[in-house]
């Protein structure tokens, strides 16, 4: 049975959440969104309905946070609470309804990122944990980890320094490079601590995207295997996936099932098509 970290929000039923909540965590620039963009079609190919969500994407607070970050006057407590508002709006209106409908929810960051950011900004641990005690415990958290010296070229050479990613509100160093290194190092310390506490599955994000994708597929496959719905997935596909996951040599492109579906898959697809408004897109996906 699904659980929260301690408190249940009013009106929230969690006894019948049959979907899976899968978290992709990691600091800025480790390739989370690249992986989610690979995982979503892969899961859909297998007949799972997928909702992907992530920080600041709530209809309620996303825009307000973006506007607040454009200025230079967003305080630390305010920032933590604005993000909490964004999270709870998505939890109540997207994540929980999707899980109830049997979706796989792929979330780009979860409360752990919010906690790490708040801790680095000096927020009280008990305070932050109390706020996020209303969060659902996920089925798995995959932590894509890069050390600071691997992170620097990835972020900086691709998109340059960002004020917030460099923690300029915290570490006004001589330049953004110094700030970035200080801030991301501090975040990494918090992530590593949270990783132990919350039993993240740690994955080396320095591997190439395809190799990382195979690792994530194997990890998610383990989560799904523990689920009763695994019976809907054909044996042949199951076999292919576990082999490719074990050898790490699988292709990113889905195997031939899409052109030659089994009877089971056809049934499953029709169920899922119904559950997703018949257009193959997740009804709850709002971007």
């Amino acid at each position, binding site marked *: 049975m699904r659980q929260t970290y301690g*408190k249940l*929000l*009013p*009106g929230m039923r969690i006894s019948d959440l049959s979907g899976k909540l899968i978290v992709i965590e990691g600091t800025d620039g480790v390739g989370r969104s690249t992986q989610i963009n690979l995982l979503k079609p892969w899961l859909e190919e297998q007949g799972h309905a997928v909702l992907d969500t992530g920080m600041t994407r709530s*209809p*309620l*607070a996303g*825009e*307000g946070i973006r*506007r*607040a970050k454009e*200025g230079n*006057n*967003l*305080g*630390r*407590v*305010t920032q*933590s*609470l*604005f993000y*909490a*508002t964004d999270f*709870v*709006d998505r939890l*109540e*209106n997207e994540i929980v309804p999707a899980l109830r409908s049997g979706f796989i929810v792929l979330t780009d960051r979860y409360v752990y990122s919010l906690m790490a950011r708040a801790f*680095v*900004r*000096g*927020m*009280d641990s*008990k*305070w932050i944990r*109390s*706020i996020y*005690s*209303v969060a659902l415990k996920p089925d798995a958290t995959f932590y894509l980890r890069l*050390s*600071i*010296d*691997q992170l*620097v*070229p990835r972020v900086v050479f691709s998109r340059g320094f960002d004020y917030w990613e460099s*923690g300029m509100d*915290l*570490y006004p160093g001589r330049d953004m490079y110094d700030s970035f*290194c*200080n801030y991301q*190092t*501090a975040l*990494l*310390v918090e992530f590593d601590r949270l990783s132990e506490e919350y039993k993240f599955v740690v994955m080396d994000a320095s591997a190439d995207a395809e190799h990382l994708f195979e690792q994530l597929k194997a990890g998610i496959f383990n989560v799904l295997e523990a689920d009763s719905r695994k019976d809907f997935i054909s044996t042949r596909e199951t076999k292919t996936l576990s082999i490719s996951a074990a050898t790490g040599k699988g292709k990113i492109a889905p195997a031939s099932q899409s052109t030659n579906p089994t009877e089971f898959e056809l049934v499953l697809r029709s169920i899922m098509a119904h559950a997703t408004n018949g257009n193959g897109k997740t009804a709850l996906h709002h971007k």
Partner: protein
Amino acid sequence: MEITSGNGFGPFEVFLPAHSAAPKYQQHRDGEFPGRLFIVEGIDGSGKSTQLSLLHKWLESKGYGVVFSEWNSSPLVKDTTKFGKKKKMLTAATFSLIHATDFADRTEKSILPLLKAGAVVLCDRYVYTAFARDVARGMDREWVRELYGFAVKPTVAFYFRVPLETAIDRLLDGRNGFKYYEAGMDLELSDDPAESFRLFQGMILKEYEEMVPEFDLTVIDATLPIEVQQAQVRRIAKAHLDQAMNVRVQR
């Protein structure tokens, strides 16, 4: 913190200790700052805003540096709150969190720094409003109190106590209709906004009464004439200002 270096970047050993930047979050107590914080609470129609504005005038006339901060007024956050209310998309939880965000911004930008600077800060509604409303909406009592753990404890928290019917009579005189969240329509207590408002305010009143001993609120009988109430408010405020002569500014 061990920092690896393997791809030509580095050395990275020169980094400063990572945790030195942020001052620790702390809970603030009365008397910690030279300023004074007076706040007013009570259900709608209790007359608290009238009393606060009279106190404001008096303090200014006495030469104090006075600053006023109203519930739900942060320039950074209020558009989001307004949007959520207009679209009726706030739940008990997001209603609670967005108001806490608004309060945090005002605490960080005006209430706390101004108290440090020695001002007299006046707040129309404070954390007790959130405690009353959010709990009436079904939020966990302890969770909401913990949420506002960053708030400064007021020097005096005035609670304007008024019977429900008196407050509603005062309100009905001056307006037509209630707003959706104001009337607690989201709680689905009644389809009639006036009836919903009455029931919701009753629940809030009950929460306020329970908070009087919990937070040592200073109760003012809000059925008394305005002048009598104001005299009491000024007398109580003055007792706290006498100990803080250093906040007096020259005119």
